[in-house]
């Protein structure tokens, strides 16, 4: 029984990471109806930036917030330079641009920082397990950080003028433009925010999976699965989906399929959700009139 409880708690901890990445994906999807295949690679790059800041002698939390700022800037720049020119292009072009982005960022990360696996420090490092061995300090800490991020993002969209403007730009760009919202910049901000959320997820997961340029590939897959499960147009659903996928993945890995097939679990979830309930558990069913 202890084993099961531990698996669930560990699942919630990794689920928090998936939830953050899923939230980043959903934010971009909501605003532009594009799925960002490069989200994972962007997060990995951010984590490497944090790593080099820490290597340069900065205290952890300075590097943490510094990375968030830098990642936000990278997200905005990417949107302005690469995504905006093809905003109205066919889906194939968009997918192609995202794949190009994935290749460039992923390989540039390897080029700059090397392919050797690196140890990333955890700010919650303590060897003694808490609550009688149920949860490690890092699991607890990273879950708290993730939850804080999620609450902050929710509050930002719910209570600030800028958040309202961004929601309006995503929901109805034409009317939003008519009332004076700069829709293009709202999309760029959305990209920046998504990149920043991804950066937090990367820094939280790096101490667990160790830092290397392909670190996020599996995580991206679980985040996709989580986002789809909760409904790709529903941020709260995606967060819940991310947590559920984390728990499911851990339980399936521990009791059903073993660790070798964990990625296949994500594939099964994705296909299952898309075939059985394409709008996800909490998504809107979109009917298009022809």
């Amino acid at each position, binding site marked *: 029984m202890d084993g099961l409880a531990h698996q669930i708690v560990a699942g919630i901890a990794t689920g928090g990471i998936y939830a953050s990445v899923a939230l980043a994906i959903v934010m971009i999807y909501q605003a532009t109806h*594009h*799925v960002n295949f490069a989200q994972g690679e962007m997060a990995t790059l951010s984590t490497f930036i944090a790593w080099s800041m820490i290597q340069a002698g900065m205290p952890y939390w300075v590097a943490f917030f510094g990375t968030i700022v830098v990642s936000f800037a990278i997200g905005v720049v990417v949107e302005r330079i690469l995504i905006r020119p093809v905003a109205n292009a066919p*889906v194939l*072009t968009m997918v192609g641009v995202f794949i190009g982005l994935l*290749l460039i960022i992923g*390989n540039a990360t*390897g080029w700059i920082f090397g392919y050797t696996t690196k140890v990333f420090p955890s700010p919650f490092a303590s060897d003694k397990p808490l609550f009688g061995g149920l949860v490690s300090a890092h699991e607890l800490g990273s879950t708290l950080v993730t939850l804080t991020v999620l609450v902050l993002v929710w509050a930002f969209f719910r209570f600030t003028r800028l958040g309202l403007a961004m929601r309006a730009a995503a929901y109805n760009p034409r009317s939003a433009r008519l009332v004076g919202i700069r829709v293009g910049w709202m999309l760029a901000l959305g990209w920046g925010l998504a990149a920043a959320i991804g950066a937090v997820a990367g820094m939280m997961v790096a101490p667990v999976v160790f830092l290397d340029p392909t670190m996020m590939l599996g995580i991206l897959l679980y985040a996709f699965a989580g986002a789809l499960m909760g409904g790709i147009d529903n941020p709260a659903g995606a967060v819940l989906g991310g947590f559920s996928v984390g728990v499911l993945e851990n339980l399936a890995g521990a009791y059903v399929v073993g660790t070798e097939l964990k990625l296949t679990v994500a594939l099964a979830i994705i296909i299952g959700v898309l075939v059985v309930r*394409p709008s996800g558990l909490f998504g809107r069913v979109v009917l298009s009139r022809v």
Partner: protein
Amino acid sequence: MSASKGLHPEAAIGPIAVPAATPAWRRGLYLLVGIAVALAPLVLLESFHLFQLTMAVIMALAVLGLNIVCGYNGQISLGHGAFFAVGAYATAILMSHFDWSFWATLPVSAVVCGVIGYGIGFPALRLAGHYLALTTFSLAVAVPQILKHKSIEDWTGGVQGLFLVKPDPPAGLPLSPDQWMYVVTLIVAGACFLLAWNLIRSRIGRALIATRDNPTAAEAMGMDIASLKTRAFAVSAMITGIAGSLSAVAIEFVAPDSFSIFVSITLFVGMVVGGVASILGSLFGGLFVLFVPNIAEAISKAAPGVIYGVILILFLFLLPDGFAGLLRRIGQRLRIRP
């Protein structure tokens, strides 16, 4: 309506200019020149470069498979590496466990890949655009893990993979195994390209394109979209699978880690750079994905990826119809029909 972009009503009902048919003697000449150019490397290149050219033709074949479902039918697949892997493993298992000859494994590999492609075509019917890209992407990510799994390790050889040997050249032909492999690849790829060429220029090919451009109108004209799409997936998987079979014997080795997500991405890049919805473009795509990384690898291990990405984005921005489209436009400029 985005489908009727720029098409003037009169243009649609006006007389269609039918290009004059190429005279038979000229077609025969083209064919002879083509065969001569294709066979020239046998005498001109030494073994390693011939092997590379063989791989380029194989990649071109795989890109052709992707082009049928993605370029002509508009179903975005980022997971065609999976079919490539299945084809390679089908041939490798039959050859190393059952001592089949290479030629005998080809139909089996084609059927297996076709059936799997048909099967994947069904969920694909309910998924369009990004969702399909995402699902096939995750399929491609999961493939190496599935291939490594313990339950099929006896067949697949697990992480170590399987070794096999190239088919021997028939007695009496003065060819080395490498040269014979090149000829085999040419024959198989030639047959598949011819098949694809005829398919695309037939009624079914036009139906595939119509389904891509305007599914509603196509359905209103009586096309069975579901069956067209699943069959397009099957044919596409079959061709890419055959390319996988060829690659298994050409390299004489298969292992799970050589079928990572980057195979699928490579095929996608090849398709875009060569030319989306272009049969000739697939050939350029194959040459591109094989030779550009070799050149780039001289700079750094990571360089091919970065250069790939940059070239992919540049093509999408500047030459969305790829290299084949560029040639077509130059041809039109020069008033020569390509």
